[in-house]
């Protein structure tokens, strides 16, 4: 049994005596008897490291690691360079606290500053914060940022990832914010429906690009509509796609948010991931959470500090516009190292490979009768197809061959599959799956 307590019982006896106590029990004299636990916790006894390793390894082995994955829907498996894992395993980075003591935290602070710069570069925006929990909470925080006294309604496209929409609903539910949704038309935000609900009370409009179904939205047309009613324009984006696709800034967005997981963070059964938020200069002081700024020290040397702190909960308390404190700093560093390693060329390459593989996958799938693209618009690395026969049966067969197939959609899209490909999917893998599917469907 390990406790990581260095002092032996004898040493602790000595310490107790030196402060005038006779036993450990006396340390807790201020806790009233009625609330003292009069029994042991009903937990297993402590174990050696070796035993714990066995238990945890056995638990991990009860999960299935798929060699081939054609599923995204909000979590994407991309190639993670070795150096990313090495750098983010350094103990100093892992075990440091939030960098409130700037003089001994320049490493963390500078890495966040570099992260902020890269998020601005990716999205084309002016300022970025140090991260929030994930893409869903980033979208929710962005919506709250835009609320004004006379604008308390927000518009969310139904082509946004449903997990994001659900999160937004929870965030808004206590705040007297009305959420209006715009239905999809042919897999994209229905522009005429959007236009119909826009008015002077709308604070912001949120879309996702590429959207949940993989389709590319008409970002400019939406911008024109949004700006005509004076609302703010929020775009949730896939950071890998920004290696080649138009940035939120180019579409006219006021705020760009997104899930940073594709930037070097493993799938991790859904977390920890990385929410990023960037905005136009005018919205700088409304950004929630920590922000690092550059300044000088007493001798004129370059220095980094947490800045604009008076926006935050530890100073503004009940008047703060967000409660966020801990964020995802180590995940932000992971993304920064990933982007350092990839560089502009590497990111472009990852984006082109992902897009090309997805299109190849779609072409090959459509060779099989019953698989058809449900939407005809432009897409990046995800797309929706129909499915011949039972979705469950087809996915089951693929699962038996070590392949995680497309994600089965529900509701109106019941029976349809949302597919994804990245640079990790080789031509051979794709061809192999097509052969399997042909066999199944032909049967």
């Amino acid at each position, binding site marked *: 049994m390990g406790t990581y307590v260095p002092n032996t019982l004898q040493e602790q006896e000595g310490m107790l005596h030196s402060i005038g106590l006779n036993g450990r029990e006396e340390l807790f004299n201020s806790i009233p008897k009625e609330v003292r636990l009069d029994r042991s916790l009903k937990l297993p006894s402590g174990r050696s490291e070796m035993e714990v390793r066995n238990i945890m*390894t056995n638990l991990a082995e009860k999960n299935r690691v798929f060699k081939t994955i054609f599923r995204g829907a909000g979590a994407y498996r991309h190639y993670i360079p070795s150096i990313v894992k090495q750098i983010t395993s350094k103990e100093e980075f892992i075990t440091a606290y939030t960098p409130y003591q700037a003089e001994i935290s320049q*490493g*963390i602070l500078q890495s966040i500053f570099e992260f902020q*710069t890269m998020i601005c570069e990716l999205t084309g925006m002016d300022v970025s914060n140090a991260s929030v929990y994930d893409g869903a909470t980033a979208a929710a925080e962005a919506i709250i940022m835009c609320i004004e006294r006379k604008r308390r309604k927000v518009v969310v496209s139904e082509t946004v990832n449903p997990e994001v929409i659900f999160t937004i609903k929870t965030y808004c539910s206590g705040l007297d914010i009305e959420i209006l949704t715009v239905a999809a038309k042919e897999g994209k935000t229905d522009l005429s429906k959007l236009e119909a609900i826009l008015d002077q009370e709308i604070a912001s409009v949120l879309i996702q690009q590429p959207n949940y179904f993989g389709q590319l939205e008409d970002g400019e047309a939406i911008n024109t509509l949004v700006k005509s009613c004076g609302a703010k324009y929020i775009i949730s984006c896939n950071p890998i796609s920004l290696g080649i696709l138009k940035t939120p800034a180019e579409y006219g967005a006021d705020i760009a948010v997104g899930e940073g997981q594709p930037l070097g963070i493993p799938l991790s059964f859904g977390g920890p991931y990385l929410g990023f938020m960037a905005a136009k200069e005018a919205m700088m002081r409304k950004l929630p959470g920590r922000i690092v700024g550059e300044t000088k020290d007493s001798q004129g040397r370059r220095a980094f500090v947490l800045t604009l702190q008076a926006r935050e909960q530890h100073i503004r308390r009940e008047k703060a516009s967000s409660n966020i404190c801990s964020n995802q700093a180590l995940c932000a560093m992971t993304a920064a190292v990933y982007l350092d390693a990839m560089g502009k060329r590497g990111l472009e390459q990852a984006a082109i490979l992902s897009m090309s593989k997805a299109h190849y996958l779609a072409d090959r799938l459509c060779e099989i009768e019953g698989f058809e693209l449900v939407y005809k618009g432009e897409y990046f690395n995800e797309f929706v197809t129909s499915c011949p026969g039972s979705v469950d049966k087809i996915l089951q067969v693929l699962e038996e061959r070590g392949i995680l197939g497309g994600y089965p959609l529900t509701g109106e899209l019941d029976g349809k599959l949302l597919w994804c490909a990245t640079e990790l999917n080789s031509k051979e893998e794709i061809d192999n799956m097509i052969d399997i599917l042909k066999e199944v469907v032909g049967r």
Partner: protein
Amino acid sequence: MKLIFEKGNKGRGCELLPPCDVPITEVNPNFKRNIELHLPEVSETELSRHYTELMKRTFGVNDGFYPLGSCTMKYNPKINDEMAKLPGFSEIHPLQPEDTIQGCLEVMALAEEYLCEITGMDRMSFQPAAGAHGEFTGLHLIRAYHKSRGDKKRDKILVPDSAHGTNPASATMAGFKVINVPSTKEGLVDLEALKKLVGEDTAGFMLTNPNTLGLFEENILEITDTIHQAGGLNYYDGANLNAIMGIARPGDMGFDVVHLNLHKTFSTPHGGGGPGSGPVGCKDLLAKFLPSPQVMKNSDGSFRLEYNNEQSIGRVKAFYGNFLILVRALTYILTLGREGLKNASESAVLNANYMMHQLKETFSIPFPKACMHEFVISLEKLKKEKGVSALDIAKVMLDYGIHPPTMYFPLIIQEALMVEPTETEAKETLDEVIAIYKQIYEEAVNNPESLHNYPLKTFIGRPDEVMAARNPILRYRAE
């Protein structure tokens, strides 16, 4: 030091991806990026050395004593990190079929069982990603509870004036009005004042216990009963749970909902500001409002994710929370077990009392009788008489290679330093630190002027924070 953007040169980089083995898809010009993307162009050597330089400019728990009050900077066991890297956890897609994620669900179920036992709660959700996120979630449970009973008047959350800033901020974010509750001279909740503040509009009360002064609320049962009698619910901020594991449980103190900070009490690393994990536990009366999905056990012993919870407050984030942090926490709980967790708390409280005892002759300690796992020093007198502030004292500590305590918190103590040594520090470390603290104090008394310029040995001196805030430079721009 140079930024990564100022290193390397055009055309440099790492070769990481293979050529494309399928026909290349051209991007439709309507959707093509037209603005330049400035990312660093560095070789792997430069990149690797850059972060080694940054690493040297970072102070972690492994670098030395780190007594940040209310933050529980205990040692982060290495086995935890290794277990989180097992491909069977790290390579699992969150939307895999249920039969392929039984191990993940079992981790969640086991952690729920253990953490509920430790806190005296009935159910738990791991969706919240950090403590503040847990507060937000827990307060939404309270909101949903009152709403489900048609009790619409309850729009106020009471918060002690010693509370963490996240408490009132979370209450506002969950749509409540905040009422501050004063503390007594003894540093505890002013029960008489509390009784006057509660009423038909009380939704709930948030409390950290032991509180942020390191004191256990002796009247805890009367406090929680006062809230219950008024029809409100009690919320336990688990920031200081490290003092009482196996000794007392929030559930037995009258709390209805708790959040934990796995990155404090359960030894998962802080990562320079996250990712943490802020699970929310509750009594049965609130269980049906927990975020969706919940892990449930099937009759055959397997696990499922239950989405069909009509009264759930919904999601607070995508997927199931910071799962790999939970893997680390479970590893820790399995390692320590029932005796180990209790021993950890006892040792944490002993270390804090030992330090406080040795320091109370020198420093002004507002509540010197006995503390739990942390204690507060006030430098108000030193500031008045010698002009040396808590900040000055903290900055000298940097030159001794130790991390300063939490500064200027709680807000109700002037010039506060809040010390939480944790259980993972050895006696000789405490003795060294005690000697350093006393030496610094002596210097402050004898030579106050000299203390305004520290630190001198760190990579940078005191940064100009006014300049940073007045003219924010929040990113690098290429010339």
